[in-house]
């Protein structure tokens, strides 16, 4: 047993420089999985197109699991994984920072040093807030996930600001973290990156005996199981609620066939009532064509669109398309939101045979007639 070796080595108070197991395997796996999840989360949420949202959600859910594990392991893990071993007083942290500022070799800490520990706690708090705000964004804006039945669009929109701002903060912290590790490597000569892979750090000669409490995996498992059962049941209950943003749209054969004769019928939530009414009153010149209908049909469709226009929905699309272009209030593809969401799509993509025109929503948004417009449902037809 390696811990026995440490114990016997520690018994002789003055010993030579020797490797000591500092980071246990679960903590190391946690660290590098978190690195992977944050990278995937950043790429799929910020760099790649929206249709990678499915992967983004997986990265988020795995990050939540990692955080639950790490906080539990912070109590039941082996010595240096325990939060108490790197909880320093603010005075202690400040004096360590001052010491670092001299850029001279500093006192050696086997686990996290005081400044590093500040970063670890900071990262745990920021990552928890990012994932929780992400769940609110998912429920409020996308009508998905466990909070779909609870979070309003406005709540999701607010959470989106928190989510995005904290990601910027997180990126800054990652830069500082890597810089700090580099600095410590330079100042103490420790191979810190290797330590997070092998778990071993070299303790300088003359270091006094180390107490090294073992991990308590059984207790940790029980706590995690209890937490997951409790939180899981709660979230499961929430997730059985109907998404709060979606109204029930009874099918209208008249609307779908009369409007669907020339173009895909647009989901009624995509324009405000005022726009629909204006459109129905001007069918004689409908985007450059005569689309007139008999009076009775016009009345029927107007009633339908008035009842189910964007005001009746709390989806992202309904909320965003409610702001129309005042010069072209009938044209969804002229709304500021539509334009900003499609500016990265090349004109060639719209010319593809299966798309043809910008107004052919269903060519890429495979769930367009639900009004949801899920990011994961975007399937851009490939080049012929």
């Amino acid at each position: 047993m390696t811990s026995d070796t440490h114990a016997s080595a520690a018994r002789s108070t003055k010993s030579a420089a020797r490797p000591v197991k500092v980071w246990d395997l679960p903590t190391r796996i946690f660290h590098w999985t978190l690195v992977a999840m944050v990278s995937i989360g950043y790429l799929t949420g910020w760099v790649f197109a929206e249709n990678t949202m499915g992967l983004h959600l997986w990265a988020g859910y795995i990050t939540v699991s990692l955080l639950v594990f790490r906080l539990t392991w912070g109590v039941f893990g082996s010595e240096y994984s325990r939060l108490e071993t790197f909880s320093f007083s603010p005075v202690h942290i400040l004096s360590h920072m001052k010491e670092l500022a001299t850029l001279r070799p500093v006192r050696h800490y086997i686990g996290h040093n005081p400044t590093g520990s500040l970063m670890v706690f900071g990262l745990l708090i920021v990552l928890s807030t990012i994932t929780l705000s992400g769940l609110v964004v998912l429920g409020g804006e996308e009508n998905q996930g466990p909070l779909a039945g609870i979070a309003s669009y406005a709540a999701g929109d607010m959470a989106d600001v928190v989510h995005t701002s904290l990601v910027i903060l997180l990126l800054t912290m990652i830069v500082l973290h890597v810089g700090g590790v580099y600095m410590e490597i330079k100042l103490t000569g420790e191979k810190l990156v290797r330590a997070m892979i092998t778990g071993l750090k070299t303790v300088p000669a003359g270091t006094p005996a180390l107490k090294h409490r073992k991990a308590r995996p059984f207790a940790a498992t029980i706590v995690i199981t209890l937490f997951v059962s409790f939180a899981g049941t709660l979230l499961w209950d929430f997730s059985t609620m109907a998404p709060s943003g979606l109204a029930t749209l009874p099918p209208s054969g008249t609307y779908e066939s009369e409007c669907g004769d020339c173009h895909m019928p647009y989901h009624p939530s995509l324009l405000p009532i005022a726009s629909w009414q204006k459109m129905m009153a001007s069918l004689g010149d409908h985007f450059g064509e005569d689309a007139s209908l008999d009076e009775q049909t016009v009345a029927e469709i107007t009633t339908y669109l008035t009842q189910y226009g964007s005001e009746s929905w709390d989806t992202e699309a309904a909320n965003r398309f409610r702001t129309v272009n005042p010069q072209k209030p009938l044209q969804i593809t002229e709304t500021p939101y539509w334009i900003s969401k499609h500016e990265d799509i090349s004109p060639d993509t719209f010319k593809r045979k299966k798309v043809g025109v910008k107004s052919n929503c269903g060519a890429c948004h495979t769930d367009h007639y639900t009004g949801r417009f899920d990011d994961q449902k975007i399937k851009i037809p490939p080049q012929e």
Partner: protein
Amino acid sequence: MKSITTLVCTFTLVAAFGAALASPALAGPREDIIAGFMAQGAGPANPANGQKMYEGTYGTGKPGTPKCTTCHDISPQKGGQTRTGKAIEPMAVSRTPARFTDKKKVDKWFRRNCSSVIGRECTAQEKVDFISFLMTQ
């Protein structure tokens, strides 16, 4: 044995399909519609004029739709495409047997498309000519 069964099945299906294709021509809806236009003052059908209408360019209606073939294919045998990219079934009655059998639809599309392309309503005579041309296709 199996190939004979297949052959018989195919033949039956083809026959049934053929009968379905032929039936609107035998039954009256299209003839009734034409008779209705004649009652509004149209004379005998002139398919040649119908063809001229179908293939011609007007430019007197809405700017985006100067001719029928803006959306319909120049060959009535082939399908067209609306300006929004939606497919239009071929206009030829032989290809789309349901053409000109629903009075409401016929009125709706003559009203809209004559207005969009020509910029006025079509006369009863023009409607009869137009339908009779596409019945020969």
